[in-house]
């Protein structure tokens, strides 16, 4: 048994090293496939980061009358947080609102001038409410209109839901649409890549059909014939993985700072190093499984002699 396994590995390695051209073609195609599989993995996570970053921007604000006490507002914040549809509730005090405004518009002479003219702090305290889905904001508004105690209801100056509703719904529709398109595109690309790799390996084995037939005729068992092809496929897979990993590391390292400059908080190099083992696992399993399974399927029909 051990001798047979040793011979299968030796023969697989020998065929791999002797058929340099075919091995190089297989490795090239498999590297492309693995790179694509890894890109899809990165794309999925990065698009999630971008989508949630955009969704973070969608919220509604509940403004309170000037007379409202901070303690009451915090109580309402507590009540809102208990609603299952609510993701989070942020309290922005009058002072904080003024500070943010000044910070944002300090270079705008006109706005700063107007603020001085109004005098004091014209801003209202507010609660910024974020829900998980666009459709859930209605539940928040219903809660504020109906379920909340009348004492608290009287403290509310206005809820800007109806002004922001179209924008919020558009943001959610666009981001979920982008997600679906991304997933469909990924599936199509993955299928194409796998078919290309599979057919390359199949053509390489077609070249060796006569050799397989001879091996059968001299009495070799199916496993003794199939084994070296699987080993050959797996070796191509491992080498393709190493090449892909190197290419990917270089791309992430090189593009990381540039992408971070475009989308703040998105560092692909950190993402790569943080998910290093998952990426290796995806690449190795894609490479080895693709190589070994394609060889195994392609060789089947020649073993019927």
């Amino acid at each position: 048994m051990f001798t047979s396994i040793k011979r299968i590995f030796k023969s697989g390695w020998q065929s791999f090293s002797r058929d340099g051209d075919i091995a190089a073609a297989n490795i090239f195609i498999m590297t492309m496939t693995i790179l694509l599989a890894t890109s899809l993995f990165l794309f999925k996570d990065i698009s999630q980061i971008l989508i949630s970053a955009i969704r973070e921007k969608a919220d509604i604000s509940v403004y309170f009358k000037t007379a409202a006490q901070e303690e009451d507002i915090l109580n309402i914040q507590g009540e809102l947080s208990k609603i299952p549809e609510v993701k989070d509730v942020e309290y922005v005090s009058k002072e904080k609102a003024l500070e943010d405004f000044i910070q944002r518009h300090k270079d705008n002479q006109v706005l700063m001038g107007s603020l001085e003219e109004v005098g004091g702090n014209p801003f209202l305290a507010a609660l910024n409410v974020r829900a998980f889905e666009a459709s859930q904001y209605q539940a928040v508004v219903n809660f504020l209109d109906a379920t909340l105690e009348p004492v608290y209801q009287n403290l509310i100056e206005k809820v800007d839901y109806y002004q922001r509703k179209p924008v919020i719904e558009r943001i959610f529709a666009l981001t979920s649409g982008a997600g679906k398109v991304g997933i469909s595109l990924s599936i199509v690309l993955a299928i194409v890549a796998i078919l290309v790799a599979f057919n390359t390996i199949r053509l390489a084995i077609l070249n060796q059909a006569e050799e397989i037939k001879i091996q059968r005729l001299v009495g070799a068992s199916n496993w003794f014939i199939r084994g070296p092809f699987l080993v050959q496929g797996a070796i191509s897979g491992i080498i393709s993985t190493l090449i892909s990993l190197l290419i990917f590391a270089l791309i992430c390292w090189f593009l990381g700072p540039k992408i971070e400059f475009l989308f703040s908080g998105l560092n692909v190099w950190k993402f790569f190093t943080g998910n290093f083992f998952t990426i290796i696992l995806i690449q190795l399993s894609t490479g080895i499984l693709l190589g070994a399974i394609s060889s195994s399927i392609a060789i089947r029909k020649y073993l019927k002699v």
Partner: protein
Amino acid sequence: MIKFQEVTKIFPTNSPNGYPTTALDNISFEIKPKEFVSIVGRSGAGKTTLLRLLMAEEKPTRGQVFIDGLDIHKIKPGKLPAVRRRIGAVFQDYKLLPSKTAYENVAYVMEVIGADDLEIARDVPEVIEIVGLTERTNNFPVELSGGEKQRLSIARALIHRPEVILADEPTGNLDPYNTSDIIRLLLKIHELGTTVVLSTHNKEIINKLGKRVITLENGKIIRDEEEGRFIL
């Protein structure tokens, strides 16, 4: 040892006119152990089909083929390699493994039967020497001449000491000098106690051998003689 019992082989659409071709038509014969039998006939008489049935490369349309009482077309596919290991085959087109050297081609059969590394290291050079290819041990088949390829194919066929050697037109592609070399080797193997089945359409060889000759014509046995001659 080998028995063909009312064997018919019809290839459904193999003929140029698209009609079924009867390659073998209800043939029966037996080969005893340690016999040297030549199968002769014109091209298309059914010689190669007969040997392919014996190697279980093809299945008969009707009838049975036995090796030591075992119907080789009834056994499970997984058991077929074990039957083939009892046979050594030599083909007109050599059928050598192109990606392996001369040594590796011969050693492969030993590996297939599970021989240990020591046995392989001892027997392979010995057999390669018997067929006169010591100088070519590390050459690939593409680097060998026709005669050398056929001698290598014989080395591969006899390395595991099979009970039967099947030689399908082994001299078909060779010049007269190499032809007599190959026949001498086959006779030597036979003298050592191996059953040899030789298919050929070389009149000179058959007439010199003076062994049993089965003559095929249009898929039928028309003559089966001990110490036969090539008569067509």
